C-alpha cells in the first residue's frame, strides 16, 4: 500500500536539526519548522504520522522542542541519530547565548524589532498549523473509518474548553487533571 518513501540518512537528519537550532528565532515557529522539514519538503513522514508524533512528544516530560526532535529522530534514523540530532538542535543556541552574554545588546530596539517580527510570524504559523490539524480530530484507530459526529463534537468542545481554561489563568496541572479523564471517557465510551 505504501509507495517508496524517501528515507533520511543520519546526515540529513543532523542537517535539519542544525538548521532549526541555528535559525528558529521565536519559540512558536519550531513545530512548524519541523513539519516543513519532515513532511512538506522531504516527505519522510505523512501528515497523519506527524500528528501522532506531536501528540506523544507534547505529553511526555522534557522540553517540548527537544521531545519533538527526539521522537522524530528516533523514528527516522534510530537512537544514535536522535541523540546527535538533539545536540545539533541545542548547541547553536547555547553557544550563541554564551557569546552574546559578553555583549548584552539584546535590549536595543534594532535587535528587538526583528526578533518581535519573528515571534509574531512564528505564532501566526503555529496557529495556522493547529487549524490544519483539526481534521485529525475525526480520526479513529482504523484509518479507513471516521469517528462518529458525537465523538468529533465532543473532541472539539474539549479542545475549546482546554484552551479557554488555560487562557483564563487556570493552572496547567488543574486543567490536565480534569481534561485527561474527560478525554479518556469520550474516547472509550464511543
Amino acid at each position, binding site marked *: 500500500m505504501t509507495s517508496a518513501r524517501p528515507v533520511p540518512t543520519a546526515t540529513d537528519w543532523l542537517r535539519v536539526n542544525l538548521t532549526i537550532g541555528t535559525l528558529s528565532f521565536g519559540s512558536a515557529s519550531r513545530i512548524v519548522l519541523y513539519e516543513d522539514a519532515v513532511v512538506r519538503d522531504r516527505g519522510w513522514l505523512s501528515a497523519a504520522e506527524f500528528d501522532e508524533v506531536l501528540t506523544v512528544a*507534547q505529553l511526555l516530560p*522534557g522540553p*517540548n522542542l527537544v521531545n519533538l526532535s527526539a521522537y522524530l529522530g528516533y523514528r527516522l534514523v534510530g537512537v544514535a541519530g536522535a541523540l546527535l540530532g538533539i545536540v545539533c538542535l541545542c548547541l547553536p543556541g547555547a553557544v*550563541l547565548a554564551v557569546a552574546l552574554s559578553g555583549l548584552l545588546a539584546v535590549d536595543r530596539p534594532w535587535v528587538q524589532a526583528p526578533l*518581535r517580527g519573528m515571534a*509574531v510570524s512564528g*505564532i501566526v504559523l*503555529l*496557529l495556522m498549523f493547529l487549524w490544519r490539524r483539526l481534521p485529525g480530530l475525526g480520526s479513529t484507530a482504523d484509518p479507513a473509518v471516521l469517528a462518529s459526529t458525537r465523538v468529533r463534537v465532543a473532541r472539539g468542545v474539549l479542545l475549546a474548553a482546554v484552551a479557554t481554561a*488555560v487562557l483564563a489563568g487556570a493552572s496547567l496541572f488543574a486543567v490536565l487533571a480534569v481534561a485527561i479523564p474527560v478525554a479518556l471517557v469520550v474516547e472509550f465510551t464511543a
Partner: protein
Amino acid sequence: MKLLALFWIFFRIGLVSFGGVFSVLPELQRALVDGGLVTPEGFIQAFVLGQVVPGPNMAMCTVIGWHAAGPAGAVVAFLGIYSGPVAMMGVAYAVYHRWRDVTWVRRLELAMRPVVLGLLGASAASLMWTAAGTHHVLALVVAVAVGVLAAKTRLGALSLLFVGAATWSLGQLVL
C-alpha cells in the same frame, strides 16, 4: 567540587522541566542565586538571552554555567540540564513505540489530541500578547502579511520568519 555541584543542580532540575524552562524558573533561581553561583542580575540576563537565541530556551543554563565556572561549567550545565529529560523520554518513547500498534494505545493517542491542540492554541494566543507588546497595529500588520503569504504562496516557515522580521523592522522605522 564546584563542577559536580553545578551538574547536580542542573540535572535534578532538568528531571522536572516539563514543557521547558518556565516550569522550573523559581527552582533554578533558588538553587543558583541563593546558592551564590550567579548574581540576581546575571540570572535575569541569562534568562533574557535564553529566550532570544534559537533552539530550546534552556540555553540560559549554559550561560549560567559559563559564568559560574568557565567553559567546563558551560559543558557541565549543558549536559546536566538535558541528560535527565533525554534519558526519560528515551525510555518513554521506546515503550510507546513498542506498543503503538496495539489498538487501545492508538486510541489513547487519539484521545489526547484535543487536549494537546487546546494547550498549544492557548500558549500561541498568550505568546501573541507578549510578543506584540505595545505595538498592536504593527503586530496585526505583520500577522496578516505572514498569514496571507503562508496561505497563498509556497514560501516555507523559515523564509516567512525572515519576512516577518523584515516587515516589523521596516514598520518600526516608518511608524
